[in-house]
């Protein structure tokens, strides 16, 4: 510990602290631009100059380490004089365009110029002008305003992992730019808007839409990925104008992914469903709630009477709130059916009824920083979990060694120690090899259920390398990605990965696909437990008479769009609770009930680490739309089912979680009772590997125009490895028809070295590929 005196206050700080950090702990504000607590120190704006005893000139607080007995004055005459001098230079070339600048009102330069700037400029020479850059559909530039603090450059390099911006040229000509004509394509790019201390980088979708002081700031939770980023939603005249991060060091730190930040643009599009709609004689008519609800109640009662309760089923989106999913399953179970599920893209349900709790990350997100070995199984990690990947990236810099087993790799923008790329049908064998290598080198004994499978494989070099890596760690974790959970042998992969974690003394976790992937289990929106029934897959393969769909667009959100359309087409009644009017569904749906997106309803999500995060509505209901939990409560009462008299959404949550409002840790568990595993057959044909692209994962983000204009939202390619392209006789750029057992899709081929041999990586959740049906299985490719 070091003793330091700042502005006359004595304090102790740990070794290696800077004067800036020390000043922050006593509440002494040192003006600054380039310093940011999450970024490396640049010390190039010079705004944080402070007076230090015995130093001949002012020193930059951000880059000056504390020494024992140091005396610092942050607001002495010398310090303020230095700061004012720096400010004068910074303002020399800065345009006086605050009245038309979006940063006005929340600009660090504007704020500090009030304190340190002169009333008048002494500079009479020419000002420099810097050309604007096109950074893509999300970030708008006014580069003349730039003060060259390089926060954005350091962000892309250090946090996003790829240096997409740089400071080119020198001295007066220095300017921030991407490499000639390139855009900033990181899935975290929006954070440079927050980081920019001036108006050089501002939000393109928000441009000229409102002033910072006109909007109210309301807290919310992101409904997208399984992290549950904390949001500040800014609202003007009951319209969401902008979304910013709410700093929460335990969850999203001070960052947001672009999906969390810009999805609000999809809220108020033209296809927003505003009135209940009923199909009569093949034509859709708008109606009132009473009529629509009567129709639904009559229909469901009739079908139950005619075909029995088992002919009714419900599918809920994993992006729905805890309360919505709970009430959905309450309605279904109240009717006497157990057909309810929220695991829409999963294909292996053989663990149902044998799970000891809700699958979760197995650790808290903040513990990632302390890991030293990590194995990721089946994940498009960087795009599926942008901010968890960011945490792993920071941990890698501190020595974390990451291995991954996947059928297709992207550049994750951090170094992978071992990268094992195998086709989908070889994944369980690959895990068994790692397991065998661990058994051979380790002390712990293998559980007998794995013996047959482990005996059937030979350890190879790559498996050995992964086993060695895991075996040499002290704080190990093994994670299942979304791809592994959706895999046709998902349960076997789960069992194998958890056994690998056990033998390497590590923790096992499931990353989780959506905001409420853990919460759905806790809400009971699964077809086992109290009343069991058909799972998401069975509900489509053995068609039911009535379906209730909550927040789903079947073509994009279900594992097999073709089977879904067939099942819904044959059903007597399909009730959709949706925030949007979904064109594709107009053919087979019978009722559309307008329900609220996350901004207009209250509720809670349980994130991947089991953290319950509740939120309130931030704007009023649009049109006649109503929060889904209220709609389901009224539906339950109208159907004459008991126990639906909840007064508030909090009462529903208390019913699920108890009075504490947080998840009892005993309800979270990745353990399953496993049955002996046998070797899986290896597929000989061409196998499809389907990823869910980051901006196609849920109905809201699919409607955000700026996100749909990003590079991540390009129409899917059939991505094939160079060797497989050769055996197929194809070239990159060829137009091909991809055929599955259910249908076909016409796409363009691209060469991708990251895809396993014998595989075609072709994204799902997209209008060009849903006709292929199942996310996995064999396909053929033919040039046209």
């Amino acid at each position, binding site marked *: 510990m070091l003793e330091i005196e700042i502005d006359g206050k004595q304090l102790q700080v740990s070794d290696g602290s800077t004067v800036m950090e020390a000043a922050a702990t006593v509440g002494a504000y040192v003006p600054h631009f380039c310093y940011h607590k999450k970024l490396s120190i640049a010390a190039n704006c010079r705004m944080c100059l402070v007076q230090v005893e015995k130093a001949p000139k002012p020193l930059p607080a951000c880059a000056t380490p504390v020494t024992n007995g140091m005396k610092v004055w942050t607001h002495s005459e010398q310090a303020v004089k230095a700061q004012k001098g720096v400010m004068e230079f910074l303002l020399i070339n800065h345009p006086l365009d605050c009245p038309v600048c979006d940063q006005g009102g929340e600009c660090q330069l504007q704020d500090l110029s009030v304190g340190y700037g002169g009333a008048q400029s002494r500079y009479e020479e020419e000002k420099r002008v810097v050309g604007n850059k096109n950074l893509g559909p999300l970030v708008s530039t006014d580069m003349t305003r730039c003060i060259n603090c390089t926060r954005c450059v350091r962000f892309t390099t250090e946090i996003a992992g790829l240096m997409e911006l740089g400071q*080119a*040229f020198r001295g007066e000509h220095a300017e921030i730019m991407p490499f*000639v004509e*390139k855009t900033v394509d990181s899935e975290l790019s929006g954070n440079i808007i927050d980081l920019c201390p001036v108006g050089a980088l501002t939000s393109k979708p928000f441009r000229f839409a409102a002033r910072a002081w006109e909007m109210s700031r309301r807290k919310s939770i992101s409904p997208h990925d399984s992290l549950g980023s904390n949001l500040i939603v800014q609202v003007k005249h009951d319209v969401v104008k902008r979304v910013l991060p709410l700093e929460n060091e335990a969850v999203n730190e001070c960052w947001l992914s672009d999906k969390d930040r810009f999805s609000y643009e999809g809220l108020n599009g033209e296809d927003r469903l505003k009135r209940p709609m009923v199909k009569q004689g093949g034509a859709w008519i708008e109606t009132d709630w009473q009529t629509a609800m009567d129709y639904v109640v009559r229909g469901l009662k009739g079908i139950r009477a005619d075909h029995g309760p088992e002919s009714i089923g419900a599918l809920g989106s994993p992006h729905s709130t805890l309360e919505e999913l709970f009430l959905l399953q309450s309605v279904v179970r109240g009717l006497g059916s157990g057909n309810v599920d929220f695991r829409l893209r999963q294909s292996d349900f053989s663990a149902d009824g044998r799970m000891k709790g809700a699958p979760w990350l197995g650790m808290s997100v903040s513990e990632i920083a302390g890991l030293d070995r990590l194995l990721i199984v089946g994940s498009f990690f960087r795009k599926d979990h942008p901010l968890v990947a960011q945490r792993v990236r920071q941990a890698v810099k501190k020595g974390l060694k990451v291995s991954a087993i996947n059928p297709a790799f992207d550049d994750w923008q951090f170094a992978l120690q071992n990268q094992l790329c195998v086709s989908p049908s070889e994944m369980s064998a690959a895990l068994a090899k790692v397991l065998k290598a661990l058994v051979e080198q380790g002390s712990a004994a293998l559980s007998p259920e794995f013996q047959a499978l482990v005996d059937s494989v030979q350890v190879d070099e790559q498996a050995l390398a992964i086993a060695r890596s895991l075996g040499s760690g002290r704080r190990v974790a093994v994670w299942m990605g979304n791809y592994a959970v959706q895999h046709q042998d998902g349960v076997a992969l789960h069992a194998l990965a958890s056994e690998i974690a056990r033998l390497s003394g590590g923790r096992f976790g499931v990353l989780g696909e959506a905001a409420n992937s853990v919460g759905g289990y806790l809400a009971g929106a699964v077809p086992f437990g109290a009343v069991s029934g058909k799972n998401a897959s069975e509900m489509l393969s053995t068609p039911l008479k009535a379906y209730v769909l909550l927040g789903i667009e079947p073509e994009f959100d279900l594992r097999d769009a073709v089977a879904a359309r067939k099942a819904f087409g044959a059903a007597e009644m399909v009730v959709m609770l949706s925030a949007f009017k979904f064109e594709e569904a107009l053919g087979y749906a019978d009722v559309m009930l307008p329900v609220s997106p996350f901004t207009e309803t209250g509720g809670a999500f349980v994130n991947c680490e089991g953290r319950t995060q509740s939120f309130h509505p931030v704007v009023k209901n649009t049109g006649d739309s109503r929060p889904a939990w209220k709609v389901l409560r009224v539906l339950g009462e109208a159907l004459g089912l008991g126990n639906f008299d909840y007064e508030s959404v909090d009462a529903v949550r208390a019913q699920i979680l108890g009075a504490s409002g947080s998840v009892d840790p005993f309800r979270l568990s990745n353990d399953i009772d496993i049955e002996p595993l046998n070797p899986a057959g290896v597929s000989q044909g061409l196998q499809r590997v389907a990823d869910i692209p980051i901006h196609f994962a849920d109905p809201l983000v699919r409607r955000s125009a700026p996100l749909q204009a990003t590079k991540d939202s390009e129409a899917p390619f059939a991505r094939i490895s160079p060797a497989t392209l050769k055996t197929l006789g194809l070239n990159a750029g060829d137009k091909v028809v991809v055929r599955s057992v259910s249908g076909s899709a016409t796409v363009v081929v691209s060469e991708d070295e990251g895809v396993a041999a014998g595989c075609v990586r072709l994204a799902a959740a997209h209008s060009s590929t849903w006709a292929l049906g199942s996310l996995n299985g064999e396909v053929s490719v033919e040039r046209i």
Partner: protein
Amino acid sequence: MLSPESLKKIDQEIAKYPADQKQSASMSALRIAQQEKGWLANETIEFVAKYLGMPPVAVYEVASFYNMYDLAPVGARKITVCTNLPCALSGGVHAAEYIKKKLGIDFNETTADGKFTLKEGECMGACGDAPVLLVNNHQMCSWMTEEKIDQLLADLQK
């Protein structure tokens, strides 16, 4: 993109640094690439970046920072005249003006026949020899009086 000879030279530069710090060779690699190509096109910079495993913009930062790298095509002979203070006090500016008049071009311009490009340079570390100029980044010329400039241009014309 680059000739095998140039790549061999770059490999020699890379070998001087630890394997995980290839970026240390970026300045040498750019120099070698410029020697072969005459100037550094964006494609050349991108190639060098890929060769060194660096983000292209990081190499562009280097290439745009130092003024001996040319980001636009130059004539067969590039003359860089130092106009920093010691040279300026000893006739550097005058030498530059004289060359401008003789060649009929300004700084950063190339003669119509594509033979000469004139650049304004920074200190070349030989202030005692002022005024100084560089030909094609490698040939240093000292005490450049009008007569010596006439002689130099005549030699270069050949």
